[in-house]
């Protein structure tokens, strides 16, 4: 039994410190944005969020996030597979590369795209227009959300014993069949969790898409850029409403995340017979 029921003073003090810190840090801002947005009731919020340009920006955000998630799910799975199962020189380097999008400033990411594909960029004659356009925004969104699927799938894949696959081979299953029936069910959970994280990250991206997209109203304006512009234009209710909308979606994603995270760990945390 790891958790001990708390009896003495000190543990309660530690718990109180943590709860107060987490509450002030995480929940107070949440309460503030809700009370701020609904100051004049629900009507203005509904109006703001159903404004044509608001809806347009939301649609763009969803398009980018979902497309990026699909791309990163497929290619992320391949990268994870190669990094876990293959041995080749320089593997550690590629493994280290995967973490970079976690730490590289999104502004720099957007800026690199401008350097490459901008009007005076290195590749200004590139056949597809990437700067200040949707494809460019998609590329940066894919970049910033790249590590999640890989990092969620890798440990699960690494922990799989080869015996199961070998058992399937000895039973005559083809490679594809083995992957589909044996490997995939084992890593499915990791993939889904990774996709959810990818989605969350992609939905909220601002810096990179703002730089590369230029934030052209109704064309390259995502939900986050919409919030930014609304604040500038003193359209506070518009900004708060959109912030709340994204916040609610995020909390929804968080709920899904927790539900996913809890599912397998539930078995582990069950009351174990402590006698032996």
């Amino acid at each position, binding site marked *: 039994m*790891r958790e*001990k029921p*708390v009896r003495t003073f000190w543990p309660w003090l*530690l718990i109180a410190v*943590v709860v107060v810190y987490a509450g002030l840090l*995480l929940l107070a*801002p*949440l309460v*503030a*944005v809700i*009370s*701020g947005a609904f100051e004049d009731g629900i009507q203005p919020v509904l109006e703001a969020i159903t404004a044509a340009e608001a809806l347009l920006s939301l649609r763009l955000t969803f398009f980018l996030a979902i497309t990026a998630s699909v791309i990163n799910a497929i*290619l992320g799975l*391949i990268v994870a*597979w190669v990094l876990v*199962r293959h041995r*080749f020189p320089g593997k550690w380097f*590629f493994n280290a*590369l*995967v*973490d*970079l999008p*976690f*730490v*590289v*400033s*999104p*502004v*720099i*990411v*957007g800026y*690199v*795209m401008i*350097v490459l594909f901008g009007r005076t960029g*290195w590749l200004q004659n590139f056949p597809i227009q990437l700067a200040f356009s949707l494809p460019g925004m998609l*590329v940066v969104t894919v*970049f910033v959300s*790249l590590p999640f699927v890989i990092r969620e799938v890798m440990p699960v894949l690494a922990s799989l014993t*080869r015996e199961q*696959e070998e058992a399937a*081979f000895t039973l005559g299953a*083809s*490679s594809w069949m*083995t992957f*589909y029936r044996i490997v995939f069910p084992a890593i499915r959970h990791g993939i889904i969790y990774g996709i959810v994280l990818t989605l*969350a*990250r992609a939905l*909220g991206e601002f*810096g990179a898409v703002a730089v590369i997209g230029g934030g052209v109203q109704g064309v390259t304006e995502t939900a986050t850029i919409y*919030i*930014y512009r609304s*604040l500038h234009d003193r359209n506070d209710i518009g900004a*708060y409403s959109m*912030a709340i909308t*994204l*916040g609610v979606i*995020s909390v929804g994603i*968080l709920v899904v*995340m*927790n539900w996913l995270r809890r599912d397998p760990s539930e078995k582990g945390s069950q009351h174990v017979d402590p006698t032996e």
Partner: protein
Amino acid sequence: MQLAFPAKAAARPHLPFGEWGLRAAAITYLIVLIAIPVIVINIEGLRGGLDLFWTDITRPAALSALWLSIWTAGVMAVVNTIMGTLTAYVLVFYKFPGKRLLDSVIDLPFAIPTLVTGVMLVLLYGPQTLIGGFLDQQLGIRVLFAPPGIILALLFLGYPFVIRAVQPVLAGLDANQQEAAFTLGASSWVTFRRVVLPAIFPAMITGGLLGFARALGEFGSIVIVSGNIPMRSQTAAVYIFGQVEGGNMAAASSVSVILLLVSLVVTLGVDFIYRRKSYA
């Protein structure tokens, strides 16, 4: 007795895709998407020669932006390493009402767009709000458009890093090691310091460094709370944004190179700690 096994049984298990095709796809993806951009920014930053790079980087606004990014991220990393470790400890070892909720809420910063975080903080600490007004008028502390606001935003988004790094290590810690220390007469505090802390230290540093690196490049929340005042509340990422918008590519490049360099060093440091740990 003879069992007829399919011919495949003897063969080395195959990959479901062509081995080389798969590897090529993975490597190309990583190189095109990650390696090339990193190389590009370095070439671009140093294209005008080291002198120009030096001139750009030593502008007071650039220097102060870089320094502001580093010290605010540093303060955040220290605070959250301590608070995150404490949180992880409480979550792993104690049972209390609301524990599950707390455990869930910790991921909030991973889910909420940082720009939204910025908006939330403006609504919480802005000069016309209850808390912000009180802090400003009674205590003379400006939160928004000043370093405290930046640190608050970073504290918010950096909170989960150390917790999520330390929590599994604590949970996987052999409880008997602590009990062994107890039977040898060690108090709870001595046990924590001598037995638990050394075991979780690499995870703490890893989480702290990752949080630091992440905070260094943070843009979305800071652009809202900092007010973008050069020399006072303009961080490196915001500075780069401003230079790009203004068409001043050289200035943007040089600060990008420095920022990227710090991130790279930190990431490699984390990699090193991880590896050293797994070799030990």
